[in-house]
């Protein structure tokens, strides 16, 4: 597990959550692996205990981690479908906020779709 | 539960760590001034000193020193984990031991200095100063004289207690320097002048009437001061 924090890049706990999540998706953090305790995390990153706790709590609520009282916090076992389901939900969330922005700024659904396809194809070509 | 700190460690901590920047300068001045005066007067004030009176004065001095030290804040002394009861007992014991300690130390210094003076006299004039003149030993001062001496000593202790427990730092300092020390000096001078000029111990006895009434009034005053001062002090120590 590795985490690097930047003061400029938004709130601390979001950065931690994002990086742990990314490491779970990439398989760098294996299911069942124990993570450092909240207090150790806080000490190692020089952050507040509540900040560290919040990051873990959010990830536990998401089902990415689970905690065993008296033992520690572990990476949750996840089935492939669940993982994909989780990702799809996240994507839906992101897209709906983009759609909201489009609606508020008077961009028509057609224009929105057009831009969506453009982005998809650009990325497809690149990869 | 942790074990208790011993009495000796407690007093040593108080005496050695109390020298803190935050201690009132005036208090130190008065304590040093008092010590100096006592040393000088013990040395040159003549032998027949009213013993009990001096004992009281030493007690007063130690009260002033120890209580002044407990006032320095923040100080390590106040962080010692100890129950208030034990703290009070330790401080009272400390004052007792300190009084005796200071007395012994002063007597030793006096003997040493007297010895040196005698040696110098012997070396320069060949006169044997070690032989004391007959009759200059402590003359009998009688029951009334002894009582008077005891009461004077107790008055010192009472005054010290009252002064040491004053809340106002400035007032405390000024009182110690301006009333306390000269009072003591005056008493010493009176007794020694009497000693030198009339061959009597207490010129003071001749100047003020020391009837039973005066003795009773003085002893009641001393007792009241001590009781009142002690109660105040215990309250402050426990806080």
């Amino acid at each position, binding site marked *: 597990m590795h985490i690097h924090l930047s003061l400029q890049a938004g709130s601390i706990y979001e950065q931690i959550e994002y990086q742990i999540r990314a490491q779970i998706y990439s398989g760098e953090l294996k299911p069942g692996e124990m993570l450092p305790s909240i207090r150790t995390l806080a*000490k190692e990153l*020089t952050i507040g205990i509540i900040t560290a706790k919040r990051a873990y709590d959010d990830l536990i609520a998401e089902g990415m981690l689970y905690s065993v009282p008296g033992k520690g916090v572990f990476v949750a076992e996840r089935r492939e479908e669940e993982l994909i389901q989780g990702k799809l939900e996240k994507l839906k969330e992101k897209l709906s906020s983009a759609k909201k922005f489009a609606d508020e700024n008077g961009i028509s659904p057609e224009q929105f779709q057009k831009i969506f396809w453009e982005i998809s194809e650009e990325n497809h070509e690149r990869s | 539960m942790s074990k208790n700190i011993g009495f000796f460690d407690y007093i040593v901590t108080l005496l050695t760590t109390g020298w803190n920047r935050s201690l009132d300068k005036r208090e130190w001045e008065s304590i040093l001034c008092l010590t100096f005066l006592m040393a000088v007067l013990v040395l040159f004030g003549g032998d027949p000193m009213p013993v009990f009176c001096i004992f009281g004065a030493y007690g007063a001095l130690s009260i002033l020193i120890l209580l002044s030290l407990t006032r320095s804040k923040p100080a390590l002394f106040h962080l010692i984990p100890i129950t208030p009861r034990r703290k009070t007992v330790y401080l009272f014991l400390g004052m007792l031991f300190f009084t005796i300690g200071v007395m012994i130390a002063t007597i030793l210094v006096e003997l040493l200095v007297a010895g040196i003076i005698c040696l110098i006299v012997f070396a320069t004039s060949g006169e044997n100063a070690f032989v004391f003149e007959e009759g200059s030993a402590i003359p009998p001062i009688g029951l009334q004289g002894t009582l008077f001496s005891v009461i004077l000593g107790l008055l010192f202790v009472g005054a010290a207690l009252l002064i040491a427990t004053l809340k106002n730092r400035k007032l405390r300092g000024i009182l110690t320097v301006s009333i306390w020390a000269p009072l003591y000096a005056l008493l010493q001078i009176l007794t020694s002048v009497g000693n030198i000029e009339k061959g009597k111990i207490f010129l003071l006895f001749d100047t003020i009437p020391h009837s039973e009434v005066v003795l009773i009034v003085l002893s009641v005053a001393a007792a009241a001061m001590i009781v009142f001062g002690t109660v105040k002090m215990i309250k402050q120590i426990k806080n």
Partner: protein
Amino acid sequence: MNGLEINDLSVTFKTFRLDATLQVPQGCITGLIGRNGAGKSTLIKAIMRQQEEMSGSILYDGLPFKGNEREILSKIACVFDSPHFNVFCKAEIIIKFYRKIFSSFDMELCRSLMEQFSLPLKQRVRDYSLGMQKKFCLILALCQKPSILLLDEPTSGIDPYDRGSIVELIQQFMLDETHTVLFSTHITEDLDKIADYIAIMQEGKIDLFEQKDALLEEYRLVQCPYLTEKLQEEAIGVRKSMFGYTFLTKNREPEGEDILVKSPTVEEFFIHFLGEEEQK
């Protein structure tokens, strides 16, 4: 549970009056900020029972002081703004005293920390530099193995490198969740990083006490060239400069032209918060 529970604590001397009620949660680091003379040191001294005249109550890990004096004095430790022992003594003598006074004193820890910070044992504490004195006091406090640690300006006058190690020592101490830390500071940079709660003191009173993350999330720092009426309404502690206005707002998405919105740091929050109080 609260590590420290201060109820209607009141201390008066001369014209200054401290009137504080504060709950310091156990297992957390609470930062006390305020301007010079706001009463931070007085509050800490009162908690350490160094004030003669005080009323109100303080509970230490739930225990009142009266009747538990010995237990409480062995569980609280403090780094005061100046050394609270005879600085003419050599460091090793002071350590010896501490060993006698506190039976829980950890000599091993003390030795290793003295070495880590390269503090000479045979030197008088008075001859230490200011930073060294601060570090020595902190080492003494930590080696007492307290459960409540109070720090009065632990990082002021100390270079950034040593400040880092002091912050690390405090966090090391916090690895035990029954421990509590309350520290006062001017250097809010340290608070930005490690504090969980923030208390702002002004003129002897606690003006604000909140969780740091929540506080910084609730407010936004706005910089804008013009102050529209709408912005003016929401603005807290407006400061004017040649290039426009800077202020705090509770509105998370303020609108306006050429406007820059970001999360405030503790320092920015503090400055604007006090600015607003003063305008009132």
